[in-house]
């Protein structure tokens, strides 16, 4: 008998661009997103939100709402089962505002009614009397001693304060460049609105079907706020219409469960688009002051920076975002001396938290702009300057952690720079020019520019967080033959973890038919679909579980005196072979006072080159091409990896030239897709990709995770290209037409010495 290695016959193994198993139901409209869930006789929930950025609640009158037809429950903070607060990293947020509201949009009351419109109208009938309090919406002002204190007065408004001190931060350099930079608030703008369906149980508990990034973390926050033990709260992942960080925090989860428990009926809650803007956290806006020093031959001597991140009214993940902004604050370069002081503060703006790139986005815009300033000051080509200072394996970043298992950054830079350029513009057809169908130019004011940037970020959780994922792999026989079932709690949010699990299981087990089951809380946590970590963590857990199942099958074969490859697998499966494995990456170290430690598991690097056409008369930009090289470790599914790169770049493009949550006195002024501009197919140029496969020894198949780097350095590359085309300074994103036409400055008015404590800032006005 000839033994043919089974793996050769398999379709859709690791390394192949297999189609997604969830794509057919999605293209047929059969895939159930959270907002598509319904149940016979269910009620609909709605939320009353604060119209004020900071106010005391004097009185709430709910009777007018309660007496409306079809209204089944009205809940205010007085009706809550406990006074527990919630929050991703600090429980500082009340389930419903209690005595005080701290941002425009803060939930104040809930209604359940027979239909959604009735519920919405009932919220309007609730009368709330407010007494206005002074609001602080300028994050640097929030740090000053005279600012209103939003939470515990003894901490002031500081949420997190991180100093990275490396070498001699006072080292002098021959050439120095400085700048103040701003990153505005960006929205994740996942297309699927927040939605959940809560069904009360016979046991007094509740089952929640919800679109989220991390079922178990939701559970940890929800159960105490409901006054229930965790075993009485069951979570099931509903179809997720994108996430990008916005579903890492609790939004409506507790609310919809409270309404279900109060009415003893199933309740669904779905945000509309406007409410979605108020309902979830956004990317932290940042103010940054930088000072770079270098030798005349272009070697970095020191980087000093002060970074202030606006955490909004509640902390969310501000702690980790501040740490990331600081740790990666000097970029993927060899920097012998550094001082980065990053602070995140409470303000009366909407809360901010996770968004793709998570702190690394903000500082990358600043340090890459600084690198271009340095290149100009030194007369060195910007790409060459970057390559000259690029980290190599074994080099230490400014937190003193060595870089291991990554492609040399200089290779990432050079391979990106070597990608083919787009053709020169030959036509004056307005459709191909900035402004497009607006027919604003025939090309007379259009200038082309090229920009380059490189960025870095960690993969997985950092700083001693117990990061793990759990996978159950079960091989069994059913009517159709041998099947492998993979069960984890990892949220598929669009990124393709279903593919990663399926392709790894198929490859390891040698079984064609692999079913990835719906994630829920009946299995252990998988951690969040964030930090580019699910391929490494849940992929790793599936890999380990498959190998244990294989060992079990080999043992069963051996018991029959055979080798496993010689027998029909079905013969070994009178009982299923099943293993549950919890996978951890190597431990990381806690932050210390100067953040000098091995805080991260591994690093991701990417470079971007942007080519843009800018109409200097109208200030409009058309991005012509993006080229990117990224160290992906190993592409489990190259097509899906390219999808992540292109999608991430689109979000970086958005931040570069159009996306901004505009705030006035703490209120969002553009809470709609009409006014919050997102890139369309006309805005997104062709992307040229070079996937660098430099396997990481600790990751499954060497695959490091790919989701975030595309969003980190694409933004500064595009802005650098606009600068090259226009000569404008452009120290703020998104770049606005006025910035291009008039050279508008966006300085904050605060004078801060780079590297020093922003609490000692002075306002120059």
């Amino acid at each position, binding site marked *: 008998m000839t033994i043919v290695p089974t793996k050769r016959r398999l379709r859709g193994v690791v390394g192949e661009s297999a189609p997604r198993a969830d794509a057919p139901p999605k293209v047929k409209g059969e895939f159930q997103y959270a907002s598509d869930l319904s149940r016979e006789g269910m009620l609909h929930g709605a939320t009353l939100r604060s119209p004020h950025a900071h106010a005391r609640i004097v009185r709430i009158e709910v009777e007018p709402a309660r007496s409306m037809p079809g209204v089944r429950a009205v809940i205010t903070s007085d009706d809550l089962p406990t006074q527990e607060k919630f929050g991703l990293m600090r429980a500082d947020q009340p389930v419903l505002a209690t005595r005080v509201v701290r941002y425009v949009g803060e939930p104040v009351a809930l209604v359940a009614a027979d239909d959604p419109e009735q519920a919405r109208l009932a919220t309007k009938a609730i009368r709330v009397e407010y007494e206005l309090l002074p609001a602080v919406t300028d994050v640097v002002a929030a740090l000053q001693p005279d600012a209103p204190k939003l939470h515990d007065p003894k901490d002031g408004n500081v949420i997190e304060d991180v100093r990275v001190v490396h070498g001699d931060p006072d080292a002098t350099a021959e050439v120095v460049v400085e700048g103040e930079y701003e990153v505005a608030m960006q929205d994740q703008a996942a297309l699927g609105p927040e939605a959940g369906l809560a069904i009360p149980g016979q046991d007094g508990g509740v089952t929640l079907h919800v679109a989220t990034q991390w079922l178990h973390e939701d559970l940890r926050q929800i159960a105490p706020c409901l006054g229930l033990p965790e075993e009485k709260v069951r979570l099931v992942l509903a179809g997720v219409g994108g996430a990008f960080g916005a579903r890492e925090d609790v939004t409506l989860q507790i609310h919809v469960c409270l309404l279900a428990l109060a009415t003893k009926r199933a309740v669904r809650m779905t945000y509309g688009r406007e409410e979605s803007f108020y309902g979830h956290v956004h990317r932290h806006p940042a103010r940054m002051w930088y000072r770079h020093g270098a030798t005349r031959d272009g070697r970095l001597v020191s980087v000093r920076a002060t970074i202030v991140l606006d955490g909004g009214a509640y902390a969310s993940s501000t702690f980790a975002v501040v740490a990331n902004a600081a740790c990666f604050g000097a970029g993927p370069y060899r920097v012998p001396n550094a001082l980065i002081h990053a602070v995140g503060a409470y303000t009366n703006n909407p809360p901010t938290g996770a968004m793709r790139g998570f702190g690394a986005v903000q500082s990358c815009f600043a340090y890459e702009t600084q690198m271009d300033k340095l290149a100009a000051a030194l007369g060195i080509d910007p790409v060459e300057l970057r390559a000259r200072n690029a980290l190599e394996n074994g080099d230490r970043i400014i937190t003193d952690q060595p870089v291991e298992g990554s492609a040399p950054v200089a290779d990432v830079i050079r391979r990106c720079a070597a990608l083919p350029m787009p053709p020169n513009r030959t036509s004056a057809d307005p459709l191909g020019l900035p402004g497009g169908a607006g027919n604003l130019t025939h090309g007379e004011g259009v200038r082309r520019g090229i920009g380059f940037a490189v960025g870095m970020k960690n993969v997985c959780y950092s700083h001693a967080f117990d990061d793990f994922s759990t996978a159950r792999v079960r091989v069994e026989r059913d009517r159709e033959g041998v099947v492998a079932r993979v069960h984890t709690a990892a949220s598929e949010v669009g990124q393709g973890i279903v593919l990663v699990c399926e392709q790894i299981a198929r490859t390891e087990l040698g079984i064609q038919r692999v079913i990835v089951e719906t994630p829920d809380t009946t299995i252990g946590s998988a951690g969040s679909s964030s930090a580019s970590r699910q391929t490494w963590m849940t992929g790793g857990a599936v890999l380990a579980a498959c190998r244990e199942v294989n060992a079990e099958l080999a043992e069963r074969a051996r018991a029959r005196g055979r080798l496993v490859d010689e027998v029909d697998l079905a013969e070994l499966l009178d009982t299923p072979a099943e293993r549950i494995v919890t996978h951890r990456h190597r431990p990381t170290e806690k932050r210390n006072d100067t953040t000098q430690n091995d805080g991260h598991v591994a690093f991701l690097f990417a470079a971007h080159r942007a080519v843009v056409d800018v109409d200097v008369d109208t200030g409009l930009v058309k991005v012509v091409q993006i080229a990117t090289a990224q160290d992906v470790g190993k592409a489990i599914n190259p097509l899906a990896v390219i999808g992540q790169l292109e999608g991430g770049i689109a979000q970086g493009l958005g931040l570069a030239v159009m996306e901004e949550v505009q705030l006035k006195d703490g209120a969002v002024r553009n809470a709609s897709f009409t006014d919050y501009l997102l890139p369309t197919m006309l805005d*997104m140029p062709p992307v040229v990709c070079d996937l660098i496969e430099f396997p990481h020894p600790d990751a499954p198949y060497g695959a490091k995770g790919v989701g975030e780097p595309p969003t980190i350095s694409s933004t500064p590359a595009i802005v650098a290209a606009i600068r090259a085309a226009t000569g404008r300074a452009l120290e703020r994103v998104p770049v606005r037409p006025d910035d291009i036409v008039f050279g508008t400055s966006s300085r904050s008015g605060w004078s801060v010495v780079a590297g020093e404590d922003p609490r000692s800032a002075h306002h120059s006005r």
Partner: protein
Amino acid sequence: MRLKLQVNGGEREAEARDHESLLTVLRERLGLWGSKNACDQGECGSCSVLIDGRRVCACLVLAGAAVGGVVRNFEDLFGGEQMHPVQRAFVDAGAVQCGFCTPGFIVATAALLRDNPEPSDAEIREALSGNICRCTGYGKILEAVQRSAAKGYSDDDRPD
């Protein structure tokens, strides 16, 4: 008010408020979930349906205004066991990530190819610029449309 609508080849009745959109009535009143609710303002195309053969955003049409028209939503156009080549192209090209925008893009692609079977890349971009995708960056969607066009488009094509 009581509405009588011609939906997906049959007459359907629904109780609705005067100001409710066709999208709300299709989804919340009639339980037809295939056309999606993303922006409520006609910016993203996720709720695209056909009324008398014309593509519209169902979120911008008052349900009452659809009375007398022939409404076809996503389930009717592209539901069922077999995949249309346009759907197959979206699957194979990797044009589906979270998939929330996908029904809208498929309706828009079909509408484009019906009018213009051999569109240039610029024409595809223009025709699909009323649809928003937040996941893919559009590269693979463009490729899916190119693949669909290369195979030749027909409304009735269900070869799978």
